[in-house]
């Protein structure tokens, strides 16, 4: 059972890493240099949140958590494309 403990320690390390990464992304969202910078930080925050959700899914072993991660991936991508489209054309669906 020592390798199970190893996996748990690695899960804790990765969770701490992604928590710090989320804080850095939130700082970049609050203080961006330009509007596309803020969109990029939001996209990165979504990807890091997916990683943290998957870590929670490994920890708990429940399958519902991975469907939450799929939803996050889809809405994050659509949100990024909509923001960039709005910045490019002033409209989302022409």
């Amino acid at each position, binding site marked *: 059972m020592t390798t199970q403990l*190893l996996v748990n320690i690695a899960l804790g390390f990765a969770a701490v890493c992604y928590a710090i990464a989320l804080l*850095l992304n939130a700082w970049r969202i609050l203080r961006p240099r*330009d509007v596309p910078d803020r969109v990029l930080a939001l996209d*990165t925050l979504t990807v890091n949140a997916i990683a943290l959700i998957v870590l929670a899914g*490994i920890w708990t072993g429940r399958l519902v958590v*991975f469907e939450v*991660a799929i939803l996050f991936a889809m809405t994050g991508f659509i949100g990024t494309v909509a923001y960039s489209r709005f910045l490019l054309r002033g409209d989302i669906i*022409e």
Partner: protein
Amino acid sequence: MMALVDMVVAALLVVSGFFGLVGSIGLVKLPDTMTRLHAPTKATTLGVGGVLLASMLAYGFRGQPWGHELLISVFLLITAPVSALFIAKSVIHRSLSPRDLPPTGRPAGWATFERDAESGAAQPTGALQQRE
């Protein structure tokens, strides 16, 4: 066998946590938006891919379903370059001019500035826009 799988899973988790942290530090520390695009689109995608691969290994070798992680990783690998391209296009559109960019080497110019060259807003086309 399970001990070996668990060791590989733990190594993948540590490496992917490191890469996710590196991507976000790059997002904060790099000087420009165009250079900042590199860190999240490469390092963070690799980090998430590592976490998903670790989950697939951990549950696949225990005979439990692992299709969700495969779906998420394929979706992320497809969409990360597309969103990076869109953000780069909006950066070009907002804060660069055609003089700042290298030549395309073809008669057509950069597609992001095509509307400015035609001097005017994009004309609505299609049958649905004719109705008053």
